């Protein structure tokens, strides 16, 4: 009697190694994965349905909830899409503040990634450090926006509030501290031979898959392609800032880790440039009374570079007081479904968690 070779293995939705609330159904032969299917939908809150019942301003509070670790790019792309539709010019200072917020969010998300990537390989100290240090960025957010996680700060027309007093100094002090800490992270994570051995050659994304799957962000740059929306399709004031877009040819987890290692340093540099160059002035262009605000018929797509890659907001208006359609494009929408299913084949079970972390899997963003 022949024994069946492949076994089905369910990982998630309750599993400490899964990045969030989703499931991966694996077909394994021994320790090797021969087939993978993702199952999502555990976090489907129907935002895109709910905004049809809310007006243009009310909807903006929903946007940050699309993606929990890094809410600001979503807020920003919604705000920008609405501004495109209604042809609102926002003040220059608001643009700079938005960039600051986006970069702070990028850093906080990258610190969370450090924790997740370390955690997925059993390096728990990394998580204790980087999530602890992430609180300093959340403190800055709290000071500026009034909330730690869901900032609801970037809204159509600009930003909600100007800097509080002494905020610039505080940002710079925090950046100095974090820059010093990054050396510790290097020693702990990137120089760590366990980390290197577990990541090099694992989770390979081949260049031909990139076009097919619409890969974006660090995963794309980790496969040697220089592409960043901040450079290619500049928004806000990114065209006035000086930063490099790192690339690595490897295509594996290690290459993506190295890309992110540079990115967090670039964020610090951008934040310093923003603090130095930010102009004075208004931060908000008045939008009409939210109850009566109507936007002419049309559609717009605003894309933003988040830490996981391109996130975009497709907004369509029927000329009324409420959006006709708000459709969010998350980087994880392709990374975590079709691409993940593809990449997992041939890998070990123990690497699933690391690969998911490395691809930037973010379930709330997939199912919205």
């Amino acid at each position, binding site marked *: 009697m022949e024994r069946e070779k492949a076994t089905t293995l369910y990982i998630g939705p309750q599993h400490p190694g899964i990045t969030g609330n989703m499931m991966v159904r694996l077909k394994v032969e021994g320790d090797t994965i021969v087939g993978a299917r993702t199952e999502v939908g555990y976090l489907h809150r129907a935002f895109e349905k709910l905004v049809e019942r809310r007006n243009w301003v009310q909807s903006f509070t929903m946007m940050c909830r699309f993606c929990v670790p890094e809410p600001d790019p979503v807020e920003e792309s919604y705000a920008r899409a609405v501004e495109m539709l209604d042809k609102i010019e926002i003040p220059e200072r608001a643009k700079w503040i938005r960039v600051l917020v986006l970069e702070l969010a990028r850093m906080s998300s990258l610190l969370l990634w450090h924790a997740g990537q370390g955690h997925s390989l059993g390096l728990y100290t990394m998580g204790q450090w980087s999530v602890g240090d992430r609180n300093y960025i959340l403190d800055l957010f709290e000071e500026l926006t009034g909330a730690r996680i869901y900032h609801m700060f970037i809204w159509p027309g600009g930003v909600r509030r100007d800097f509080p007093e002494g905020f610039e100094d505080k940002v710079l002090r925090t950046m100095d501290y974090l820059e010093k800490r990054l050396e510790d992270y290097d020693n702990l994570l990137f120089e760590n031979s366990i980390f290197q051995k577990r990541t090099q050659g694992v989770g390979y994304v081949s260049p031909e898959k990139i076009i097919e799957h619409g890969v974006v962000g660090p995963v794309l740059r980790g496969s040697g392609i220089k592409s960043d929306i901040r450079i290619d399709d500049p928004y806000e004031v990114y065209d006035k800032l000086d930063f490099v877009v790192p690339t690595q040819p490897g295509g594996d987890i290690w290459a993506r880790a190295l890309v992110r290692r540079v990115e967090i340093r670039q964020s610090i540099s951008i934040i310093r440039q923003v603090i130095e160059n930010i102009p004075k002035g208004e931060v908000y262009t008045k939008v009409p009374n939210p109850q009566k605000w109507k936007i002419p018929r049309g559609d717009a797509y605003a894309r933003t570079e988040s830490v996981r890659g391109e996130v975009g907001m497709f907004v*369509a208006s029927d000329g009324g007081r409420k959006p006709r359609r708000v459709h969010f494009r998350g980087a994880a929408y392709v990374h975590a479904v*079709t691409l993940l299913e593809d990449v997992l084949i041939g890998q070990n079970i123990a690497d699933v968690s690391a690969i998911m972390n490395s691809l930037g899997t973010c379930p709330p963003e997939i199912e919205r």
Partner: protein
Amino acid sequence: METLLEKIKDRVSVNFDLKDHKIYADQKRVDLFFKKEHIPSVLLYLKEQMDFRHLMHMSVIDWLEEGEFEVIFLLWAPKEKIKVFVKTRIDRENPVMENMDNIWPQLNTYEREFKEMYGIEFPGLVAPEEFILEAWTGPPPMRRDFETDKFAKDNFATRPGREDAQDVRETIAKRSGEDIPDFAKKYSR
């Protein structure tokens, strides 16, 4: 910028039956409208011949009043750095759209979602039955005629204790003895 976008439009319209187009120079974007049948060949042409290799997004808009779904493909040319929105309209009653996940495998995810959320059929789509919803028996929920608040009220009870809430307008009207006619209530908010 405008001439570049014009050129793209012209190149496409030479090869395909372009129904309509629109140019947004400030957004570096050109909208191309086609009949449903032309979409696969247009997308393939744009991807293979014209550098629009990155599929940014695919979206569906429900124009309930017009009885149609609008299907939109958002493409990006990494070299020329411009966007093309390929748009088409399909019938709302019997929505069928060609399966195109052989052009971009990522479309598989989108198509699964739209099948579930709008009830659009993609013949030949290889995917498990369920994507996001589980054991869903109602109509496709993203269709505009599906009322989510009503569904939620019927299925997920609200906590009691908020019955004494009042509407300001009605309270004042009651106090001053004003009768608001029915046709005016249409405009009350």
